[in-house]
């Protein structure tokens, strides 16, 4: 179920963070998004929170939850699959 969301999550990351010159295929599904990997930070996290709520109706309430949800594309997709109505 959540695997079907993976391409959509990758596109959402690219669109919401305005990552130029990168296609969804170039984002590793299991790579760390913060720190290493895509090198995202807390400013990006809030942008992703807003995008997830807008696109999937899923709320990430705080940074502690966010650190688990935004660990990778796969974890984001799993969280969306579990929490969307």
């Amino acid at each position, binding site marked *: 179920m959540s695997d079907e969301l993976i391409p959509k999550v990758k596109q959402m990351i690219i669109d919401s963070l305005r990552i130029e010159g990168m296609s969804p295929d170039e984002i590793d599904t299991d790579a760390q998004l913060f720190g290493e990997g895509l090198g995202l930070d*807390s*400013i990006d*996290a*809030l942008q992703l*929170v807003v995008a997830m709520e807008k696109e999937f109706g899923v709320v990430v309430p*705080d940074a502690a939850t*966010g650190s688990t949800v935004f660990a990778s594309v796969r974890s984001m997709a799993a969280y969306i699959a579990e929490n969307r109505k």
Partner: protein
Amino acid sequence: MICWMFPGQPITFTGVPSDDIEFQKIIRVCQESTGCNPLENDISDSDISQSVRLQLLGTCISLHRSSQLTIEGKVPDLIAEHSMGIYPALAASGSIDSATALELTYRIGVAMAKRGMQREYALGCVIGMSCSPLEEIAANNTVHIANYNTSHHFLLAGERKNIDAALAEAKASGAFSAAGFPCDAPLHTPLIAEITEGIEQIVAGYSFCEPLIPLVEHIGQTVLTAATIPAFLVDELCRPVYWDTTYRTLRSRGVTQFQEVGAGKALSKFNRWIDSEI
């Protein structure tokens, strides 16, 4: 219309172009003008705090990036600055040279670090909360909002115990994240007013040319002139950075492209957020 944006000090020593020959030249200028190499942690010099080293490093990186862009034949129509980004911004505008930008960064940074010896100060980064409730929390805990970066990104400054209490209250009130870190002095707050006399004396020792490229400041979004620069350099330390308003003002004045000239991408990310609200 193109605007170069000069960010404030970086928060880490990562992402430094240490192997770049041109960057090494700027580090040498820094050593000659301040006696300090921001890449070396010389613990024998008690004047050099971690914050001062980061402030100098930020200025070095911005000067290097600005020089690279100039070599590539790029010239901005406007320049904007955030916090300590004012010093390399002044250099890029043609008002002062690189050595003076580094000297000012160092001397003002050291003056503020001495302020920090009297009390323990901290900064608090609050993300995902709007302005009004955070202003109330700041007032409740006797701290100040030092940076209004976007509608939902703020930096608090004040005494450490008060910052800790304010951050706890912000988290309890629904902030997405609220993180604190130590600093030398509560920059961009009225708490700096006690040392402005010393800063005025430092600034009075320099002369400023008329900027060749218009430089928009972060408080009232005016274009700085040779006559207004000295007062601004003192005033800005005691007043908040209004980046959200600055960016919106630049957009309304016709800026279509923004180039971040310094360490990191924080300003570009703030702009991305603000754009999403426009």
